[in-house]
């Protein structure tokens, strides 16, 4: 350990707010040359925000970032790159129709006279880099981008970061698409980087990898630093405790409701993303779905809703087998879906509030295909009122409403449709605290009235306080349901990380 050296990266007191959310507050940490610092935390703990601030994609509100003597507080992403800071992204942008060598040098092609690209020089440099970092023979430098495997794309992304003037490399979830052999190779690379005296930041969910490769671990929770420990002084359970140990101060207290009427029954569902999924949701019950991003929760919602195809398995609504091939079938089967990406998948931003809110029930509001305007107003208005959607009029273009109000418009649409099963995918994402509380109250109300609710959420307090039972997904499989009394953050995180078994 070379802790007596001056840090290559020094971050002090960094804070960042988004409307209604404090994403990071007062984060200070440093990275020394030849040191690997792991960053861990739950979804939404602020890891991505921190990385984006580091490489200047977001500007910081307060604090200091110092890379080897260069202040990077308010610079452009290009400045940060020039200063020697590189990010290896989880899902690199690879251009499909150009070669590996060109992909590595994209935007910075070496030149000859008259602006000609120095292709031989480029290929030679890439070959040299491959050799130096232990990737020799793993990738054909003349292959086209679109022929690459995810692991090969990752190598291209790594070479982009390392090709010149690098001082600090940040890896964002580098192993999510790698096999264990590829992970070993990546660790080999990180050891080379260490020996070359670079600083390394390693962001990962996988604690055993962190224990293996990192020298130090920094823990974030809700945007606040909760731990900065040398690896040899800590253990996985301690890190988990630091990640989750939270008071449920802002939770919502639901009365428990239990009925025996099964609304949704899923048996042995298989799909491109899912492996043998079976569960039930009763009337009046809220079943929370926890798990990491990418565990297959959103895809499960879309399979149930007929947007994505299932390979096999049976979906029953109120005991009846339903063959759901598209969203209209799902609506006919009394299922509603509030998608995660409300702008991309929920709303028609250029159209009015009333149109957006009544879309799913157009056919109920019409006679011989002719819409009855008055019925539209009388159907939708009560929900606009109940949800306290702030709007100058029903004809307001939805794109002009605030985020919270937009989310409520999607909610209003499905309330008007009166489904038996409502699937909510991250219903409070990018919604401010006040609107959040209202949405919780409303979901609770709906359950009380007998609706079955499938609540997908990455926010622990939301999951723990709203759900009657929690099902955790990991790699397309589900855990057994955790009853409310047994539900703890540790239990959920353990299932989500795959460190606990059923």
């Amino acid at each position, binding site marked *: 350990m070379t802790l007596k050296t001056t840090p290559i990266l020094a971050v002090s007191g960094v804070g960042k707010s988004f409307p209604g959310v404090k994403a990071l507050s007062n984060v200070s940490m440093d990275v020394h040359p030849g040191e690997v610092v792991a960053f861990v935390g739950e979804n939404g703990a602020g890891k991505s925000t921190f990385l984006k601030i580091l490489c200047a994609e977001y500007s910081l509100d307060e604090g200091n970032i110092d890379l080897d003597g260069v202040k990077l507080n308010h610079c452009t992403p290009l400045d940060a790159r020039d200063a020697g800071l590189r990010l290896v992204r989880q899902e690199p942008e690879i251009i499909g129709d150009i070669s590996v060598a060109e992909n590595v040098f994209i935007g910075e092609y070496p030149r000859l006279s008259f602006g000609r690209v120095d292709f031989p020089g480029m290929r030679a440099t890439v070959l040299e880099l491959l050799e130096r970092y232990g990737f020799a023979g793993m990738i054909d430098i003349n292959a086209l981008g679109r022929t690459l495997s995810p692991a090969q794309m990752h190598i291209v992304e790594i070479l982009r970061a390392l090709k010149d003037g690098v001082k600090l490399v940040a890896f964002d979830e580098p192993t999510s698409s790698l096999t264990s052999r590829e992970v070993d190779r990546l660790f080999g690379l990180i050891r080379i980087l260490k020996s070359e005296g670079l600083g390394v930041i390693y962001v990962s969910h996988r604690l055993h990898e962190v224990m293996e490769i990192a020298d130090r671990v920094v823990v974030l929770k809700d945007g606040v630093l909760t731990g900065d420990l040398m690896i040899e002084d800590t253990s996985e359970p301690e890190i988990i405790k630091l990640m989750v140990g939270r008071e449920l101060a802002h939770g919502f207290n639901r009365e428990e409701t239990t009925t025996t009427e099964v609304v949704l029954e899923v048996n042995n569902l298989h799909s491109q993303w899912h492996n043998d999924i079976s569960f039930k949701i009763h009337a009046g019950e809220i079943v929370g779905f926890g798990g990491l991003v990418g565990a297959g929760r959103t895809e499960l919602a879309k399979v149930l809703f007929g947007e994505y195809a299932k390979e096999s398995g049976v979906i029953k609504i109120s005991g009846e087998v339903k063959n759901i091939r598209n969203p*209209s079938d799902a609506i006919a089967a009394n299922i509603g879906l509030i998608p995660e990406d409300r702008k*991309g998948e929920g709303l*028609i*931003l*250029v*159209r009015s509030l009333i149109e957006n809110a009544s*879309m799913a029930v157009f056919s109920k509001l*019409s006679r011989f*295909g002719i*819409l009855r305007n008055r019925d539209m107003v009388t159907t939708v208005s009560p929900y606009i009122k109940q949800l306290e959607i702030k709007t100058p009029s029903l004809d307001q273009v939805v794109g002009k409403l605030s985020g919270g109000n937009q989310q409520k418009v999607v909610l209003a649409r499905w309330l008007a449709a009166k489904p038996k099963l409502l699937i909510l995918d991250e219903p409070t994402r990018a919604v401010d605290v006040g609107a959040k509380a209202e949405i919780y109250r409303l979901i609770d109300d709906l359950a009380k009235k007998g609706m079955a609710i499938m609540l997908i959420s990455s926010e622990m307090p939301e999951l723990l306080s709203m759900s009657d039972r929690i099902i955790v997904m990991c790699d397309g499989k589900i855990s057994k349901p955790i009853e409310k009394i047994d539900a703890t953050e540790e239990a959920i995180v353990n299932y989500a990380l795959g460190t606990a078994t059923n």
Partner: protein
Amino acid sequence: MSLTKNSNNSLSAGKFFKNVGRVTNYIGAENLSLIIALIVMVVLINSQTEYFFSGRNIFNIGQNMAVVGVIAVGMTFVIVSAGLDISVGSIAGCASVICALVVTQLGSVPGGVVLGITIGVALGMVNATIISILRVNPVVATLATFSAFRGVAFLIAPGGRSIGVLDPSLGYLGSGRLLQFGDFPGIPVAFMILVIVAVGAHFVMTSTVFGRSIYSMGGNPVAARLAGINLTKMRYAIYAIAGSLAGLAGVIVTARTSSGQPASGTQGLELEAITAVFLGGALLAGGKGTIVGTMLAVLLLATLSNGMNLLGIPTFYQLVAKGLLLVVAVAIGQWRMARSERIQAKVAAAGGDD
């Protein structure tokens, strides 16, 4: 809410603007600017020539609007759904030939009209199939059928030449007039067909589940599908409507020219119709646009070329003027949208209504 407080300063002015605002809301800001442009143009033309307001001339404008107007109505459906149909002019050519063939060979005018429209529907379905089932982008798909359907029109016309049709009852559709008395030249039958089509289309677009769903799918196809709208069915209906109206336009061309024309009279109609739809306030991205706007734009374009003809301005200048008009109109629309977004951002930053 802070915005309305300012209007207390001058009550009468505030009231005036409020009323203007109400009128604007009812007509729609885009349509209002079209109306203003139309009025300005009419005043300008009228100041230069005494013939503009003559019955004969107004009759001509109505007559000339009909063919492109009918096609523009169909194009509005397509563009609002975020599609495009470049093949409508070629479809009209096919319909013109079919209609003439049926009338001359079978002697049935109603049969000719119905079959002309039917071939339009069929070719529209071909477009929908290429777009929905073969998943070809609408611009590419209809660019292909633009060429193919024109070829078909020449192939079905014997010898690839036009077919003379001397049937007075068919001619009535093209150049007949209603309510003619004294100096009043009457209303062109073709124009009345356009009015009926436009009123019907306006009703469909504004008041039916189908029409509202077109706006939804144009605004955001994914959200529309997740709200239960079947996009494939919608596309079939939309391109069939565009095709049927192109077919109707082809029939009117046959009636007016007393001949089934594989090309002449229907070439370039698609671009004129697309111009009118965008001028009428539709977005290429879909989700926006109205029949009223399109009709105003068709009227504006017809008035422009009529006025320039009266003033003896050569066609070449007219083409340039039409192009300029479209650019100016769309640029104004963009500017207005950007401005309203800026105002909204300011309100949000000031912690206003939110």
